[in-house]
């Protein structure tokens, strides 16, 4: 099967600007390569500052890369101009960690979900609203939520709205940047189930960015571990069992997956 997206030697640098001049380049993503097949999930795990979110923004075409290629639908996104990128973007959608910040609190759910369609100038207002109702149903929210405002929703409901907004453009790849981290455990389980069901139904590919290894192993076909801008470990989800690199070990040791490592310190 052809991968939905193939990334080759991707490099992203941020330039830190001083008051008077350019100060230094910081390499956030350092020569990364991977690919994702349709209908599968790649989990990207790593500590804060390891470059996960920079990578996400590059793939979504929201940040320019320094070098490397991003193959999607036979084209190299890294080489495309703004106009062509706009044509591709609907099929790569991002969902962020905190729906309280990524949704406009004063807009109604209908406005939020239909907006991407209207921005793309594809449909009339009326059709947009009908499609919004459809998208909402797909994420398990009844039509009565269409008139509610984002600020009146619970965290789990907001995250469903954010996912509906991403789905309405019928993407092929969803980039999920810590979408479960801000939610309660019981709500995490509901949204995780929604992701699994959507993948089965629509054959979506996911890039699931997280620092929760347990959830990564639950949702992903493949796991890549990032550290200091590089992928230091990559393989089938069961690589959790055969840990080689120390970064991976420290991450796992620290994660909820192996709570007993904490037991050693607690001996009084």
């Amino acid at each position, binding site marked *: 099967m052809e991968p939905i997206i193939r990334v080759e030697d991707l490099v992203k640098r941020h330039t830190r600007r001083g008051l008077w001049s350019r100060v230094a380049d910081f390499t956030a993503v350092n020569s990364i390569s991977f690919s994702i097949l349709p209908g599968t999930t790649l989990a990207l795990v790593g500590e804060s500052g390891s470059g996960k979110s920079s990578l996400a923004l590059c793939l979504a075409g929201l940040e320019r890369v320094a070098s490397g290629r991003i193959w999607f639908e036979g084209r190299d996104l890294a080489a495309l101009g703004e106009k062509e990128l706009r044509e591709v973007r609907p099929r790569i959608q991002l969902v962020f960690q905190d729906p309280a910040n990524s949704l406009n609190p004063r807009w109604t759910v209908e406005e939020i979900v239909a907006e991407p369609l209207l921005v793309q100038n594809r449909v009339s207002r009326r059709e947009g609203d009908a499609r919004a109702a459809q998208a909402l149903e797909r994420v398990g929210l009844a039509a009565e939520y269409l008139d509610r405002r984002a600020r009146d929703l619970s965290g789990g409901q907001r995250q469903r709205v954010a996912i509906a907004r991403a789905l309405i453009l019928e993407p092929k790849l969803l980039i999920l940047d810590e979408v479960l981290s801000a939610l309660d455990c019981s709500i995490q389980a509901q949204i*995780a189930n929604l992701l699994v069901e959507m993948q089965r139904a629509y054959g979506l590919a996911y890039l699931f960015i997280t620092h929760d290894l347990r959830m990564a*192993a639950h949702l992903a076909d493949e796991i890549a571990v990032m550290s200091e801008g590089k992928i230091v470990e990559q393989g089938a989800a069961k690589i959790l069992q055969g840990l080689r690199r120390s970064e991976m070990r420290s991450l796992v040791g620290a994660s909820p997956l192996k709570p007993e490592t904490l037991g050693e310190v607690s001996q009084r």
Partner: protein
Amino acid sequence: MRQILEVRDLRVAYGQRDGGVWHALNTVSFAVAAGEILAVLGESGSGKSTLAASLLRLLPGNGRITRGEILLKGADVVRMSAVQLRQVRGSGVAIVFQEPSLALHPTIRIGMQICEVLRAHGGLNKRERSVRARDILAKVFLNDAERIFSSYPHELSGGQQQRALIAQAIACKPALIVADEPTASLDSSTQREILTLFLSLRDELGIAFVFITHNPALLSGFADRVLVLYAGKVAEVGPTHAVLSSPQHPYTQALLRCLPQVDGGGAVRRNALLPVIGGAAPSLAVLSRGCVFEPRCEDRMEICQIRDPAAAMLANRHEVACLKFPA
């Protein structure tokens, strides 16, 4: 064991804009022994942050303790005057908040922020305060305490900011620290460092902790006991191992089932659907007559709609508020 904190029949209500009342905490009772770590586990809306604020009488303007006692070393915090409260906050009980970047003053150096706490509680001159602040920072930071002393909050990472906040909390040697989701904004290895720091503070200084969290995965090997809060009431409280490995309350059981399962080899069941808790948490605008979990409970009985369960004592200090267990 000597009790540092004893909460008896605590009830807290918030006045609503529409004139109604939101009963955030109801008949909450528990105790914390000296040097003990009690974890309060609850989801959003369970009242866990209200509980944290109540223990220091830091409730927002529309919040009120309507009944009950909060005995801190025997003195009732609920009935203290403003002067007594100021003495007890910091030196009797201190609080660590979730978001250290908001809790620290952005334009004052870390060292000065600790000196300020020391000055508020009096007894030291300027030089002594500065020496003492360095001592405190050295307890919390392994080697670069001197650099941290003269740093501004924005120059520190999230984990370092949280450590600075903890340094502030221990400055006046409190017997109890209330930590409200102190690790929620940190990544997993920093989380672990902070938990390890709490354990060493407990061991060296004998500080007890009320550790508030929504994440059950943090607690094993860290907390001594776990208190599970649901809709403003204590569902279950007991030794950590007992509550996490053989939960007795139907809510705790359902909550722990929501986590992805890890089998013996460390592998996880891939891509299956996780069990979820049906329904939603109840409105606390009206107090229900029966058990608050009854509408969502898989084991509900007829009597659960009528009678509010009292805590039943099982073996090994494990208490469960469920009518399956006769009180």
